[in-house]
């Protein structure tokens, strides 16, 4: 490509905004939270043993199911690729490392993005990134449009489709209630193997880099989530390139960047819409005068 993606976006967004007479300025103050100090979790898939205790702890914490811890020892579920659903905020999947042909397991859940697409999309602000790091959902506000599900680059939010009256968007809450009490998330609490580490983003990035440095033969040299889509609270280490995992390949551009640039361009202090209003008013007025002139001319002649 002769254009870089970013150039193209910029150029295009300028065009779009200019089409309604807007001037352009991306707002940087939309995300006031300093994400280095928000909490996060480092998921180390190299250390994960696939015990699925985290799944149970999550279900238990959020009362999603009452299934016994024992049933989660069943590893036959690995034969199928599962995704988080409305009654399971997190699931563990098994994949093969193509280089070593060894299986590894990976826990997936909401990434609690620093600049969450779901929150940018939400029409009523029912999803919000808070200071502890969690992207939290307020069912009371939600209108159920499911635009958050369209927007999420990790395809995480699930919906209670079978709920006729009060369906909710279902996704990992980062155990916000526990965070507020100063406790770790339930899954981190139960993990027997330091596959899940809780801390501030800053600490976790340091820790991840140390682990890679200490055992470079075990780790692929990349901390997934450090930069992807502008950074996420949950980050991953793996033994293989992340394209071999179920985590999607993403650029470092925050997902909401383009739409928000367009929106803020069009709505900059309401100037462009008002300008259009004024312009149309002017046309309407001046053309009417023209016509009257013409009519009176006609009468005279």
């Amino acid at each position, binding site marked *: 490509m002769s254009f870089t993606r970013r150039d193209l976006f910029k150029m295009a967004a300028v065009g779009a905004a200019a089409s309604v007479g807007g001037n352009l300025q991306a707002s940087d103050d939309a995300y006031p939270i300093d994400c280095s100090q928000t909490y996060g979790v480092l998921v180390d898939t190299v250390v994960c043993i696939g015990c699925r205790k985290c799944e149970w702890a999550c279900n238990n914490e959020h009362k999603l199911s009452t299934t016994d811890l024992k049933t989660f020892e069943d590893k036959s579920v690995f034969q199928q690729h599962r995704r988080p659903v409305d009654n399971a905020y997190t699931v563990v999947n098994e994949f093969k490392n193509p280089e070593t042909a060894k299986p590894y397991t990976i826990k997936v859940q909401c990434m609690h993005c620093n600049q969450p697409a779901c929150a940018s*999309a939400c029409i009523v602000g029912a999803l919000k990134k808070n200071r502890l790091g969690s992207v939290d959902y307020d069912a009371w506000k939600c*209108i159920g449009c499911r635009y958050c599900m369209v927007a999420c680059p990790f395809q995480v939010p699930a919906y209670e489709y079978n709920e006729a009256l009060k369906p909710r968007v279902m996704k990992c809450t980062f155990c916000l209630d526990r965070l507020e009490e100063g406790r770790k998330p339930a899954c981190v609490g139960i993990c027997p193997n330091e596959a899940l580490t809780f801390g501030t983003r800053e600490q976790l990035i340091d820790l991840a880099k140390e682990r890679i440095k200490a055992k470079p033969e075990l780790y692929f040299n990349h901390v997934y989530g450090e930069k992807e889509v502008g950074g996420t609270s949950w980050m991953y280490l793996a033994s293989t390139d992340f394209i071999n995992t*179920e985590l999607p390949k*993403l650029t470092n551009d925050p997902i909401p960047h*383009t739409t928000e640039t367009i929106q803020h361009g069009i709505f900059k202090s309401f100037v462009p819409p008002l300008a259009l*209003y004024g312009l149309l008013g002017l046309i*309407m007025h001046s053309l009417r005068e023209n016509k009257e002139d013409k009519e009176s001319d006609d009468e005279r002649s």
Partner: protein
Amino acid sequence: MSAHEVPTPITRVPFFTKGTMIVAAIAGLGILAYIYRLIYGIGAATNLDDQYPWGIWIAIDVASGVALAAGGFTTAALADIFHKERYHVIVRPALLTAMLGYTFVVIGLLADLGRYYNVWHPMLPSMWQGNSVLFEVGMCVMVYLTVLYIEFLPIVAERFGGRVSLPGPLRVFNKLIDSWLTICHKFLGRFISLFIIAGVVLSCLHQSSLGTLMVIAPTKMHALWYSPISPLMFLMSAIAVGFPMVIFESLIASRSFKLKPETKILSSIATYTPVLLGAYLAVKIGDITLREVWPLVFDGSYESIMFNIEILLGVVAPIVLLSQRKIRNSVAGLFTSASLVIFGVAFNRINVFLTAYTPLYPGKPYFPSIFEIMVTVGLICALVLVYRFIVLNLPVIAVPPSERGTDKATISTVKTA
């Protein structure tokens, strides 16, 4: 408007004919499906799932519905802002279509909302979310719908002002409603231009923003439709489909009400269409070229076929057809080309919202359920019925004196502009 053609309630045809009965039956089925959705939920009524959160209710009922209701603001702009007086005869039918179109967009949207009873939430300042494209679309549609009702009010006032006669005990309200109508009429007569301009601005805003909606999903959208200038293309295609929609309806109306088709006016607005569509096509080609996705146009994939159908049949063909005077002057030619434009724009919306959308972990591909189809088709039929009812009872469609019925209501004529 010309001195001879005055909007008049159509009295020469009955509301119920064999055709309307069938339409009513389909609409009835749609209502049943709608009720089923309300009782048993979205999961039971639709084939939507976590991977495909949006289906035809969004792609057709909402996105295509809004685009096809664009005739309202384009004719208002042409006749009232650019003062092309002879087009006034088509302003009212276009306004009515827009008003009903948007009303049914909202009804369709409510079916899709999990918590439809919260639909008013975006109005609460405490829930305003300026970053959300959907928020902007929602607010504009809501305000615009109100503006449309306000613009329509004079038509009601014209029909009933001075002769409100409610039956039975409601009689006591006659005076009140009457004077209210008169006040509205006077007040609106003076300020209607403010609302007309507002309607055009609001339309430009949300027609384009509908095109921004899917820009938030760069990794899920097929490159043929994922463009940062999608809002511009949505706006241009909406403007282009406005007049063809008016032509399409006017021809159907004159046929079912046994009126002479307004071929002269219609072929004259049809001259704008190749220009507007041509501009849209040029931007589209520029977009494909700049993003260097031409190879995808010809790779023979399902998406490329859909794209080619959309562009060749829905954009190129009507440009070619309507550039020819002979075709513009024939009823069949007008009707065919207008239908193609409408098809093209609706197909584009379906492509953007459904064809282009590939979830990250697709299970079974999405195909609408029988209930989804019933609701969508039923809503369209219900719209047709309400439209018919209104033009039979309110002065919307212009009828030359020779074809006018003997209804007394026709005496009132308002001076427009």
